[in-house]
C-alpha cells in the first residue's frame, strides 16, 4: 500500500516535471504570442457564418509557413481552438453551424440568443470550454500513453455499435415526432452515400455530376439545410426575429447560471474526453451524447430546445474536451483522428517533425510543449473571448435586413473556398430550398445532419467489419466492446422508451 502511494507520488512528480518542461517551451514570449495570434485570427475567421474550422485552418495555414516547428504547431493549435470557438459563436448568434460539432450548440444556444441571453450562452460556452480544456490537458499529460490502447482496441465492429448508439441518441434528442426524426436520420445517411463507392469506385446517386463523385462536403449541407433554410424561414415572420434585437440581457452568466452548468460541464468533459480519443471523428458524438445525457437527467426535459443553458454548457464542454483528446492518437501513434488532425500531421511533416510512436522520445520539447500550449490556448480563448462577448452581442443589434445578405455572401464564400468549386455554392443553394421545404413540412434539420455525419462512418465500419468476419453478423456480438455497446444501447432504449410507452398508454386510458 505504502509502496503504491510512493510510486504514485513519484509519478505525480514526474508528470509535474513534464508539464513544467512543456510550459517552459510553450511560455516563451514568441510562442505565447503565436498562440494568442492563432486564437484571435481563428476566432475572427471561424465566426463568419458558413466557415467551419477545417476551412478556417486551411485558410490560415499559410501564416504558419516559415515559423519554427514548435511555434508553427502551437499557432496552428491556437487557430484550431479559435476556429472551434468561433464556430460555436456563429451557431449561437446566427444559427449557422460550420461543422458537425456545433450542430448541437445551435439547438439551445440560438434559442438563448433569441431570448436575449446570447451573452450568457457565449460566456458559458467559453467558461465550459476552458474548464473542459484544463481538465483534459492534465488528463492527456497523465494518461496519453495508456489511452492510446483505447484507440487501438476499437475495431470496425465496435465502432459500428458505437455509431448505432449515436443514431439512437440523435433520434431521441430532437424536439419533434420520433417518426419524423428517424426519417431525417435516414435521409441524412442517404445523402452521405452520395459519391464513389469506397470499394468499387462505382458512382452512387451522383446524377451525373463529377462534383458529386467525392462526398457532399458537410459544411455545404449544414449551411444550406440548416443555416440558410432557417434564414429563409425567419424572413417570412418578422416578429420572430425581432425578439433577438429587442433586448439583450446580462453579458456574463450569473452565479445561478454557473451553478446550473457546473455538473453538465463536468459530465460533458468526461464524455467528450473519452470519445475524442477514438479515431475517425469519434469526437463529434461527444456533444450528441452529452446533450442526450443532460436532457435525460434534467428535471424538466421539455426546457431543452427552448434555451436550456445545460444544453449549451454540456455539449460545448464535450466538444472542447474531445478537441483536446483527439490529439492523443496523433501525438502517441502519429495517426490523425480526424481531418483537422491530418492537417496538423501535414504541418508536422512540413516542419520536419516525424510524427509517430517515437515522437515523445525523439522530440520531447515538441510533445510536452504541445500539451502545455493546449492549456495556454484555452486560457487565451477565455482571455480573448470574454471581453469580446460584448462585441459579438452588439452584432445582434445589426438590423436583420443587413445581416441576412451578409450571411448569404459569407456562406457563398465559405462553400466556394473549401474546394474552389462554384458547384458547391449552387449545391448550398439547392439544400437551402430543400431544407426550407422540409422545415415547412415539420421536419428538423438537426437529425438530418447527424444522420449524414454518422452514416458516413457507419457504412465504412459496417463493411469493414463484415469483410473481416467474412459476412458473419456474429462479429458484432463476439467482439466484447461491440457486444457491451449493443447491450448498453438496448438498456438505454428500454429506459428511454418505457416511460414514453407507459405515458402514451395512460393517455389512451384517460381518453
Amino acid at each position, binding site marked *: 500500500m505504502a509502496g503504491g502511494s510512493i510510486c504514485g507520488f513519484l509519478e505525480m512528480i514526474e508528470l509535474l516535471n513534464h508539464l513544467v518542461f512543456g510550459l517552459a517551451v510553450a511560455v516563451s514570449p514568441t510562442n505565447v504570442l503565436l498562440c494568442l495570434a492563432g486564437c484571435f485570427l481563428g476566432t475572427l475567421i471561424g465566426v463568419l457564418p458558413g466557415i467551419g474550422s477545417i476551412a478556417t485552418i486551411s485558410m490560415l495555414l499559410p501564416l504558419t509557413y516559415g515559423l519554427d516547428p514548435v511555434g508553427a504547431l502551437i499557432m496552428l493549435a491556437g487557430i484550431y481552438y479559435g476556429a472551434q470557438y468561433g464556430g460555436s459563436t456563429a451557431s449561437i448568434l446566427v444559427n449557422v453551424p460550420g461543422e458537425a460539432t456545433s450542430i448541437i450548440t445551435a439547438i439551445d444556444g440560438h434559442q438563448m440568443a433569441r431570448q436575449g441571453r446570447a451573452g450568457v450562452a457565449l460566456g458559458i460556452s467559453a467558461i465550459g470550454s476552458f474548464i473542459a480544456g484544463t481538465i483534459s490537458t492534465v488528463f492527456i499529460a497523465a494518461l496519453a500513453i495508456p489511452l492510446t490502447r483505447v484507440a487501438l482496441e476499437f475495431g470496425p465492429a465496435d465502432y459500428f455499435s458505437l455509431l448505432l448508439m449515436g443514431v439512437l441518441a440523435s433520434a431521441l434528442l430532437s424536439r419533434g415526432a420520433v417518426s419524423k426524426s428517424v426519417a431525417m436520420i435516414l435521409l441524412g445517411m442517404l445523402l452521405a452515400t452520395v459519391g*464513389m463507392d469506397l470499394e468499387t469506385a462505382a458512382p452512387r446517386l451522383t446524377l451525373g455530376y463529377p462534383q458529386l463523385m467525392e462526398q457532399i462536403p458537410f459544411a455545404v449541407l449544414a449551411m444550406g439545410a440548416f443555416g440558410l433554410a432557417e434564414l429563409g424561414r425567419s424572413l417570412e415572420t418578422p416578429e420572430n426575429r425581432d425578439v433577438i434585437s429587442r433586448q439583450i440581457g446580462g453579458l456574463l452568466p450569473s452565479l445561478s447560471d454557473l451553478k446550473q452548468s457546473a455538473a453538465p460541464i463536468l459530465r460533458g468533459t468526461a464524455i467528450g474526453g473519452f470519445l475524442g480519443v477514438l479515431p475517425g471523428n469519434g469526437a463529434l458524438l461527444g456533444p450528441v451524447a452529452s446533450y442526450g445525457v443532460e436532457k435525460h437527467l434534467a428535471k424538466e426535459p421539455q426546457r431543452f430546445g427552448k434555451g436550456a443553458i445545460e444544453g449549451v454548457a454540456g455539449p460545448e464542454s464535450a466538444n472542447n474536451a474531445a478537441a483536446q483528446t483527439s490529439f492523443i492518437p496523433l501525438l502517441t501513434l502519429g495517426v490523425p483522428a480526424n481531418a483537422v488532425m491530418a492537417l496538423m500531421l501535414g504541418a508536422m511533416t512540413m516542419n520536419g517533425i516525424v510524427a509517430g510512436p517515437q515522437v515523445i522520445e525523439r522530440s520531447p520539447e515538441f510533445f510536452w510543449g504541445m500539451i502545455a500550449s493546449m492549456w495556454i490556448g484555452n486560457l487565451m480563448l477565455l482571455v480573448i473571448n470574454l471581453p469580446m462577448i460584448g462585441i459579438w452581442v452588439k452584432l445582434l443589434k445589426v438590423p436583420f435586413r443587413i445581416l441576412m445578405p451578409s450571411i448569404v455572401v459569407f456562406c457563398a464564400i465559405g462553400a466556394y473556398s473549401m474546394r474552389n468549386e462554384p458547384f458547391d455554392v449552387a449545391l448550398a443553394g439547392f439544400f437551402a430550398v430543400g431544407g426550407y421545404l422540409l422545415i415547412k413540412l415539420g421536419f428538423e434539420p438537426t437529425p438530418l445532419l447527424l444522420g449524414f455525419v454518422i452514416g458516413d462512418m457507419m457504412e*465504412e465500419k459496417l463493411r469493414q467489419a463484415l469483410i473481416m468476419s467474412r459476412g458473419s453478423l456474429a462479429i458484432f456480438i463476439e467482439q466484447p466492446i461491440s457486444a457491451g455497446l449493443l447491450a448498453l444501447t438496448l438498456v438505454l432504449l428500454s429506459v428511454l422508451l418505457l416511460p414514453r410507452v407507459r405515458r402514451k398508454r395512460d393517455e389512451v386510458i384517460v381518453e
Partner: protein
Amino acid sequence: MRSAFRHILLTAGAVAVAATAAFAQSADTYPNAPIKLVLPLGAGGATDNLARVSSGPVETKFGQPIVIENRPGAGGSLASAVVAQSEPNGQTLLFANFATHAVTPTLFTNLSYDPVKDFKPVTLIASQPHFVLVNPDLGINTLAELIDYAKKNPGKLNFASAGVGSPLHLAAEYFKIKAGVDLVHVPYKSSAPALLDLIAGRVQVFFDNVSTALPHVQAGKLKALAITSSKRSPLAPEIPTVAEAGLQDFETYGWWGVAAPAKTPPAVIAKLNAAYVEALKSPEVSSKLASQGYDVIASTPEEFEAYIGKEITKWAPVIKAANLSPTN
C-alpha cells in the same frame, strides 16, 4: 423599385470597369503574370507540401508567384478538367499525379476532357515507393514467407487500402496478381484508420508510403518486409527491395509531376522544365524531399510523357482485375 434599378446599374458599371482591366500577354516574355498551379488534392497534405517545396525556387527564378489552387475530388478529374480547358499559355498548370494520369484514363470513361491528349507533360518531379507492411504478431519475417503463407492459406489474410484506386490500393492488387496470392480487401477511406487496424492486427497486410510508415517500422509496431522500388531507400537501407526479396518485376510508386494544357508553346514548356529541374536539383530542395521519403526525378518532358504511357498500360489490367467499376 427605382432605387433597385439604380443599384443594378451601379453593379453593372463596376463590373464593366473591372473587365477592361484585363490585360494580354505574350509567350516571349513568359511568365509575365502569376502562375496558377492546380492541385488535385486538398490543402495541407503531403502533395500540397511537395508542390510548395518544389515550386518555391521556380517562383524566385521567374519573379512571379505560383498560386496553388486546391481542387480535390473525383479522382483528380475536376482539377484536370480546369487545366485542360484553360488558356494554353503556361499560366495555368496541373500538378499531375498517379490518380490524374495513371488511373483516370482507365477508370473514368466519360470525361469532359482527354486525360492524356489534352496535356503536355513538363516534368516528373518525384516518386515515392511503398513498404510492404505486415503486423509483427503474424510471425512473418520475409516477403517469401508472406507469399508462402498466403498461398497455403488462401483468403485468410486481410489487406487494407486507403482510398479506392489510390496507389496504396492498386499496389496491393498488383501484388496479388504478380505473386499469385489471394488476399481479402478491406477498404478504408484514409490511411490513418488503416494503419491503426494494421497495428492492432485486424488487417495483416498494407502497402503504405515510405514516409508515413517509417516511424511505425522504426518503433517496431509494424514490420516492413520489402520496399517496392528498384533501389533500397537511404532512409531505411536495411529493408530489401521486392526483387531482392524474391519477387521479380514488381515495382510500384506514387508519383507527382507538372503538366500544362496540350497546346502550350514548346518554348514555354522548355522554360518551365528548365526552371523546375533547376529547382529540384538545388541541394536545399533535393535534400528536403529526400528526407521526406521522395526519390527526386526531375525528368525531361519526353521522359515524363513516356512514363505516363507506361503507367497507363501497367495499371489498366490491375484496375480491371480489382473489379473497379468503370465510371463517369
